[in-house]
């Protein structure tokens, strides 16, 4: 049981890291970025291809992948979001255009086999792969009868540190203040001289870099890297997480992530793996029906 709880914490960290990026975009731009899960997948795929196909050591590869994912966030902003803001489209339009981008990203990876245009990025088509053994040192520790793998420990530390850093940035830096101002009232922020478009671009960069990092950590811990990991493993669960925590709330997303990890592990222990898969969505559905503002959202009443 203690081992199961430990697993809940690890998977919860990944959910939280993924959902923080999701909820950040929703809080600042009022847009649900459904391409976020595709960026998550690309984070894992880019790291894998750098390590396995191009022989880059793991740490620089991970760094490059995170930056590349941030740049993909800018692509999302410029291609799918900014043109729609220009014509004051309803937020639902942005949801649909990001679905379009997600379709493209997933299909590019899925169709990449040796000899195709994207073979530099990916060569395994729709198959799922894992990092070559030895590419990442993975010592195993035994503490109090629990088995802790080094990679999982790395995930826990990375996500906690990053979430603390993000909290600091949002609370105490100039960028964070601008972000919160824009989230609160776009028009007033513009009048105060904040470059709203620049804030949106930074938000997308930050969010997608976090999403990509979550993806590569997922690939590392679960040993499952493929074109569908974003769509199948975290896209909808990420929605459940940010709904549980309250849409747009960053502490909510963090706690929601760990909460979902815990709920899933408990459902698995109690009812088996078939129920585990559905429990996130039942929680999502019930939460929206009973308390749509989430556990921590107080000011969201008007946004419904």
């Amino acid at each position, binding site marked *: 049981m203690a081992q199961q709880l430990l697993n809940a914490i690890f998977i919860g960290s990944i959910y939280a890291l993924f959902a923080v990026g999701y909820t950040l975009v929703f809080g600042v731009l009022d847009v649900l970025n459904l391409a976020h899960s595709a960026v998550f997948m690309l984070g894992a795929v880019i790291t894998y291809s750098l390590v396995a196909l191009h022989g880059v050591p793991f740490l620089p590869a991970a760094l490059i992948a995170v930056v590349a994912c941030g740049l993909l966030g800018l692509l999302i902003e410029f291609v799918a979001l900014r043109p729609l803001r220009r014509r004051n489209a309803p937020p639902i339009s942005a949801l*649909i255009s990001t679905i379009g981008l997600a379709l493209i990203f997933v299909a590019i990876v899925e169709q990449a086999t040796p000899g195709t245009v994207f073979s530099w990025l990916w060569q395994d088509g729709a198959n799922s792969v894992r990092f070559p053994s030895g590419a990442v040192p993975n010592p195993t520790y035994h503490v109090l009868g629990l088995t802790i793998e080094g990679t999982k420990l790395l995930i826990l530390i990375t996500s906690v540190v990053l979430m603390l850093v993000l909290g600091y940035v949002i609370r105490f830096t100039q960028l964070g203040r601008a972000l919160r101002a824009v989230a609160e009232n776009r028009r007033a922020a513009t009048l105060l001289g904040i470059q709203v478009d620049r804030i949106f671009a930074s938000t997308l960069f930050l969010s997608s870099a976090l999403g990509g990092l979550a993806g590569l950590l997922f690939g590392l811990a679960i040993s499952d890297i493929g074109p569908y990991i974003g769509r199948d493993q975290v896209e909808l669960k990420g*929605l459940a997480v940010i709904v549980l925590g309250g849409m747009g709330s960053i502490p909510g997303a963090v706690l929601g992530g760990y909460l979902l990890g815990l709920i899933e592990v408990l459902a698995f222990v109690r009812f088996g793996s078939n129920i585990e898969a559905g429990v996130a*969505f039942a929680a999502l559905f019930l939460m*929206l029906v009973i308390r749509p503002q989430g556990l921590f959202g107080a000011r969201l009443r008007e946004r419904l």
Partner: protein
Amino acid sequence: MDFVIQLFTDPVGFYNQHELLVAQVGINAILAISLFVTFYSGQLTLANAAFMAIGAYTTVIMSLYLPTPLPLNMLVGALLAGLVGVVVGLPVLRLRGVFLAIATIGFVEALRLGVILNVPITGEGQGLHNPTAEPLAGIVPILISLPILAYLVWRLTRTRLGQAWSAIREDELAASSNGINVPLYKMIAFIIGAVIAGYAGALETHINFYIDPTEYGVARTIQILTFAVVGGTTNVFGPIVGAVFLTALPEIVRQFASYRDVVNGIILILVIIFRPQGIVGRGGLALIRPRWLTTWRSSREHPASAL
């Protein structure tokens, strides 16, 4: 291109060669209509795949265990989908916009992963074998149902009910202050959409020997949404055109067939940015006109509105 040429020069030969494609186009068009009904009333609900699953499973389970005739089974499937629509709609329709979309996505996956995969009668992850499937005979009811449904829904949008939906879509507050019972009309749209989706699911089991739970996930709903958005939702013919266009597209340009989702994604983005009213916009088919040109002009005329 042979594909298109054959459609005009040799329609009978075309039909014989591409029966399953024609059937799939028909199913997709009916599904697009089901999404259109709720979209027309101003709500983005994505529960269609779940209602399809209810229609499909009900029909097949009834033909497996009961001696009832097939049309009755299909009818029961569609009505059961509508009934579940009432139960789900009551709590969910209080939500709006993105929240409504997310809640209905949650419903789709909760039904698929939570119920269908755990109830023995649905065959769980294995799916069900359909004893009454007749791929070729199954096409006829699809081809008959599509025009009838399209006509009915088109007539419906012309009635007081349809006008109420339009009013709610344009401005919910104004609609309710003019005495329109907003929750009631939203509910009616949701139920009609559910019944049509359930019916489409029942029809589809007829052309497949097998029902597979993975077919009824969120990906399916997103696909249906793509049809409606690309075709346009100002009238019922938009979603049908979208479904026909996007389902047949991989056949028309075979070179891109494996990159189908890339093409679909690009089309979706271009349409939502440059032609939000879809291929079939107001005034019938119109050429694609860049929207940024008009917004750029108006923002120069009224600088304040650029905000």
